[in-house]
């Protein structure tokens, strides 16, 4: 029994030295819920925006104008290839503006 333990210990030592002392095991990222304000277009917006990034990333742009939100949605499509169809843009913009707007059209 003792020799088995010794052998096991030797194997552990060998295998750790073989990987050149890389003690890092990586990280596990937490999931954090950023609640969305309920409203018309919420589910559609959730599917389109949150598949790539957190809702926190969206709402931390601060309350913004309708034009700002429209520009952001178009940037997501053009630069980041977000799968948002042209006919769906206004629904997302309307939800963002109604719930995270600053009262300004432009």
């Amino acid at each position, binding site marked *: 029994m003792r020799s088995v333990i010794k052998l096991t210990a030797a194997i552990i030592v060998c295998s750790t030295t073989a*990987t*050149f002392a*890389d003690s*890092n*095991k*990586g*990280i*596990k*990222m*937490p*999931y*954090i*819920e*950023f*609640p969305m*304000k309920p409203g018309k277009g919420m589910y559609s917006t959730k599917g389109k925006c949150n*598949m*790539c*990034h*957190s*809702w*926190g*990333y969206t*709402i*931390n*742009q*601060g*309350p*913004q104008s309708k034009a*700002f939100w429209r520009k*952001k949605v178009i940037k997501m499509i053009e*630069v*980041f*290839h*977000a799968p948002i169809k042209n006919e769906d843009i206004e629904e997302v913009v309307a939800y963002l503006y109604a719930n*995270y707007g*600053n*009262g*300004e059209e432009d």
Partner: protein
Amino acid sequence: MQRRDFFKQTLTLAGGAVVGTTFSEASQQVETLHPVDDRKVSDIAFPQKRPLITYSDRPPLLESPREVFTSPITPNDLFFVRWHMPMIPTYISKNRFTLHIHGAVERELKLSLKSLQTEFEQVELTAVLQCGGNSRTAFKPTAGGIQWGIGAMGCARWKGVRLKDVLAKAGLTKDARWIGFNGLEKAVYAETDNFVRALELEKLSDNIILAYEMNGEDLPYLNGYPLRLIIPGTYSDSWIKMISNIKVTKEKMRLHFMEHAYRIPDNECECETPDNLTQKTKPIEKMNVNSVIGYPVSGIKVKQGAELIVRGVAFDGGEGIAKVEVSTDGGTTWQEAKLDKDEAGRYAYRAFTHPITPKQGGTLSIMCRATNTKGETQPFPHEIKWNRGGYKYNGIDEVTVKVVV
């Protein structure tokens, strides 16, 4: 989860604070105020971090709370975090990681961490890392971008190798002009451009390093493990994390994140109005002079007649801090604070202390203002002019405490 717990958790997230803000018709009035200063750290800690003010988990966006700014070095687990792309490797093998150097070079290189640590001169320097949009919440109307308070900054001792030495090993071709950098972060869709930043070769200096160590330890993953670019004196938009690729080019590359992000109006005041945005813009680059109070924090109670030591940090883009002053009468009179020894170099924080003894009960305002060796100083918040990106805020910092009898 209990409803009450859920509510509590929401409140601890910075996002909740922003959602809860109501805006009146007057929101379009152009003005600059003190940045938001009432956000609490989240009750969820990220890996290798203590709980920080949390704006997003994907990508992670974490701000240091004010208390951190009493120390000339920011501990790794309190250091702020900002990523652009939502997909970040959560495991990188130290042994298999390579840095690829290619393009307008004589020899294409793939360097391991071991070769960086053994084949080049090892250098160390202390430098402040600050997001260009730090304190963005000061700007009204709200400027687009993460709505940071004062804590999108930190100062660390970095160890690594000179970028110049690595490029010399690859051998730049005569017509090389630009150096492009990117790291391992990825967008969800593969067709999306990487977060690539570029540096003009003429701006290459001895101080620009590829760092594999931060305050004597491996970099935390969220700060760019295992290697990141350090460009002292500049805002951190080009301090690429998990840097894996360096491409040298003859021509300036067309890059989304160079042409559209981290730019300010190219005019004397670096300002504009929402109704009249400037056409010509320039990169934010060199940091302006700044200082913040780490202690006391706003809202605490202090005792009348008892000595209180105000603590904070000051820095600039590398000219060096000449003085920090403290005011307890709303900025009418100023007293010079004591600066720590200038030992960590001109890109580091200078910590300051200043004892005060509150004479009367009630609300007490404490302000700090730094001046650099060129005589540049911090304006009052309302004197700072607006820009659409909400960049380069450096208003006089202020905390208010309650003096109890």
